[in-house]
């Protein structure tokens, strides 16, 4: 029998016919080249085949991370829109309050500010620049 990597490969897969396998095994006894090839291949492949099934369920942190992060991406755009709408509304109410000193308007304003803060707490998409600018404006308005 001549040397054949193809047969070695089939042997590794357990795909050799019994007769061919017998031949290969006797060839391996007299051919150090093939014996070495098989040895290295089995060593490498054996490592991969023996990696244990660690039998662990995915950690809770992964779930939080995956569903949390994806939800955030989803909400990013919508939250930004909502935030801007709310901010516009506040500016209008703010001006109304400014001119009339109406107590109800001041309550609405405070409530909106709290909501806006919640929204910003949930999204990282809005740059801190705008966040700072907006809050400064709101704080100034409320102080006034």
């Amino acid at each position, binding site marked *: 029998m001549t040397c054949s*990597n*193809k047969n070695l*490969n089939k042997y*590794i897969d357990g795909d050799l016919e019994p007769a061919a396998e017998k031949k290969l095994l006797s060839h391996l006894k007299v051919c150090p080249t093939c014996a*070495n*090839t098989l040895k*290295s*291949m089995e*060593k*490498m*492949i054996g*490592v*991969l*085949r023996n*990696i*244990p*099934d*660690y*039998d*662990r*369920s*995915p*950690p809770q*942190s*992964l*779930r939080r*991370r*995956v*569903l949390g*992060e*994806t*939800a955030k*991406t*989803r909400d990013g755009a919508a939250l930004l829109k909502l935030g801007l709408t709310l901010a516009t509304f506040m500016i209008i109410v703010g001006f109304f309050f400014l001119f009339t000193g109406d107590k109800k308007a001041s309550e609405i304003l405070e409530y909106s500010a709290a909501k806006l803060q919640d929204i910003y707490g949930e999204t990282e998409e809005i740059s801190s620049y705008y966040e700072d600018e907006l809050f400064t404006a709101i704080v100034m308005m409320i102080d006034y």
Partner: protein
Amino acid sequence: MSESAPETFSSPRGSKRIELKFSENQIIERAIDRDEEAMGYIYEEYSPLVWSLALRYTGNQSLAEDASAAVFIRLFKNLHKFRGESAFKTWLYRLSINTIINYGRREKKFRAGELFENHLGEGDKTEEIEARDLVQRLLKKLPRRDEKLIIMREMEGMTYQEIANISNLKLSTVKTRIFRARLKLRKLYEEEV
């Protein structure tokens, strides 16, 4: 997407199936619309498969978590690209193995033997761990395509037919490529030892 029996492959560490109120089709549609419940279903159903692959491939808990998270984030982002030409599980598996292997290649420092360590008896620990790290290192020297095939065949224990389905390759092509990849790996090993 096929309503027929899903293509099976021996990802042996499959999840226990959960009861679904909707068909997989409907769930995917809803998940494309970012329905949280639907996304949760998909996560519950497939996270054991993704996690197991990532954990065994990286051999490292925190890296496996990063890689799995990357898979799911990519999955939800690309869900609309699923055309149903293959079973969803096959499509997801393809995405997972690509993402996880890319992840492994980018991470220079990880030790694949780390987790392996705890699963070995005393005795031959060092040798086995070194062998595991060596294999991981050599795999990265193979073309990405070859590494993927070797992982599916040897680590995942898939049949050639299953690999052909996942890779969109002919059975004969898969066989030849794996044969060549094994020889390349053996050559790299002999250069190293």
